[in-house]
């Protein structure tokens, strides 16, 4: 609890972000009564949860000074793999889910190892891995766009994650809440968290201080890929199937959520509470725009402007070079 309060106290921008999201919802609910209904809000929350979980990995990676552009297809591959392995049966989940998450983690490890030990820039490595996974999936599916449709649906438990409420909220929300707690405490209070911020701010000084920078870097990418995997499973449950291209919106979305949440894209600052706010704002924005009958074009423009604006504002307080 103190960790959360500390974060809120030290980051006025985060508070403003939450307020903004809240106000937007309230304002629109007044204009369009259906917007504020519990069912609609719940579905918005689920959408935000998926972005939020994906952005969790991105948050950790960005704080450590890197970036993960392989999220879309790690998500997609995990979703497909899960559907294929479980064949719609709950019993198979016991081994299938760990296997699938392990596969995602392995991809993350490959990202991290190449970035830390081969010194390949994160942008290139993760983008390349993204492309590789895209190619593999597309090739294996031989162009079939709806692999879930051919092989069946995810198991009922997964399908229920986004639908069946436990204590009033769908399981997805509970998963998200526990992840929020775990990561917030982890980043703020654990040794791993301290190391991550140190590396993102100044990995040379961190090395001098005896931090195992390379291992930490690999770890962050493993976390990111695993989170993408979790999101993939949840999303497949929500849609009822895994289809190619389901991960694409999260390429921009994950980075946007992190950056709107106040973290610096260059690393070293920010926290997950901020990203959560970012995820909420982006979700509300996406929901808002159709209501005002704005075409898809305007959505893109608004996204871009919002991200630019928040990054600019967040950057104002930081000391910058004068050239």
């Amino acid at each position: 609890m103190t960790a959360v309060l500390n974060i809120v106290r030290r980051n006025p921008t985060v508070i403003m972000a939450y307020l903004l999201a809240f106000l937007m919802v309230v304002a629109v609910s007044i204009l369009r009564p259906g917007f504020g209904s519990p069912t609609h809000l719940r579905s918005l929350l689920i959408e935000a949860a998926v972005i939020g979980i994906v952005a969790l990995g991105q948050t950790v990676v960005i704080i450590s000074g890197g970036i993960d552009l392989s999220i879309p297809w790690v998500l997609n591959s995990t979703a497909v793999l899960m559907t294929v392995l479980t064949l719609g049966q709950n019993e198979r989940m016991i081994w299938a889910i760990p296997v699938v998450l392990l596969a995602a983690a392995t991809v993350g490890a490959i990202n991290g190892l190449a970035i830390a030990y081969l010194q390949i820039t994160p942008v290139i490595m993760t983008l390349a891995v993204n492309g590789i996974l895209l190619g593999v999936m597309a090739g294996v599916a031989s162009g079939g766009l709806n692999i879930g449709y051919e092989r069946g649906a995810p198991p009922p438990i997964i399908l229920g994650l986004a639908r069946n409420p436990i204590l009033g909220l769908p399981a997805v929300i509970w998963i998200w809440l526990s992840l929020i707690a775990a990561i917030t405490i982890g980043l703020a209070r654990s040794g791993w968290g301290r190391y991550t911020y140190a590396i993102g701010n100044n990995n040379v000084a961190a090395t001098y201080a005896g931090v195992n920078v390379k291992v930490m870097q690999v770890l962050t990418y493993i976390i990111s890929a695993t989170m993408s995997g979790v999101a993939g499973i949840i999303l497949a449950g929500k849609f009822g199937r895994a289809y190619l291209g389901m991960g694409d919106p999260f390429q921009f979305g994950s980075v946007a959520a992190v950056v709107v949440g106040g973290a610096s894209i260059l690393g070293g600052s920010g926290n997950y509470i901020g990203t959560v706010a970012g995820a909420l704002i982006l979700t509300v924005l996406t929901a808002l725009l159709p209501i005002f009958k704005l075409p898809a074009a305007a959505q893109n423009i608004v996204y871009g402007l919002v991200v630019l604006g928040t990054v600019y504002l967040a950057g104002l307080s930081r000391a910058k070079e004068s050239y």
Partner: protein
Amino acid sequence: MSGQTLTPLQTTASVERRPRTGERRFDVFQVIPYIIFFVLLISVVLLNPRLLRLSVLETKLNAAFPLLCVTFAQSLIILTGGIDLSIGGILSIATAIAATQMTGDPGSIIFWTLAILAAGALAGAINGLIVTKMRVTPFIATLATWSIWSGIALFILPKEGGVMPAVLKTIVQKGGILGLPKSLYLVVLLALAWQFLKRTRFVTRLYAIGSNRKNAHLSGTPIHATLIMAYALSGLLASLGGIYRTIQYSTGSPTAGDPFILTSAAAVIMGGMSLAGGRGSIGASLIGAFILLLINDLNYFLGVSTFFTPMVQGVLLILAVAIQSLGNYLRQRRLAL
């Protein structure tokens, strides 16, 4: 030494008499893209001799030109140590405007071509302003503006469609001059443009900014002006590619530019340019673009499903960067720095 008079001015000072104290070895790594290009070219031609037929060559070069423009544009930015993710959006805007506004009337064609190029330059300049005056790092800045430019493209042309005057296609893309495809001349022009550009002070400044921005500043470089110019030029080239692509497909598309983003970055890297900036040649980047296109052809003829293309590109990208990394590491070891 003190007390000795300074050597008198020598009127025939020659570079060759200077001590070769620097490492002026022939840099093997620079030549690799060209070697790979020739090997691929020969392989592809052997697999498919029809390629040498003029009509086929013409089609291939027509298809290549937009990528070459965008690769050129991306190289300019990567040279400065940045990256332009919005380049696809600028290209999309170009196709959108072209497909909706151009009529067959020569006046319209000329006016709208100039207008589109100006719009591309303006979009690029805005990118440049955000990166310099607003101090937003290029990755995020262009990620955001990509969304904005895509939105504008969608606004102008909500769905793939529009129509291009047919006469343009005939003039620009069909038939030949002196027996060679017109697009070949355009490609050569692009290569010549680089040969010319690289001898300008502007490009020297780009290298300097990418190599060490702080020292470029200390040496008196007008950094903001130079960067804005670079982004504007980049936007102009992207919209040029967009116009050409629209002529080729005869329609516009609001998402036409998106595939070009990753491919142009891949081409630049395949051509040996460092993402950190300050090193490399745009000519080599153009070769890199050809390498990627030839690989596509090779895949096709080897029966590899085109769906695997992104995978092949991804692996190649990693290999290319790993080789660069290796080269750097070896160089540092050798110089014991």
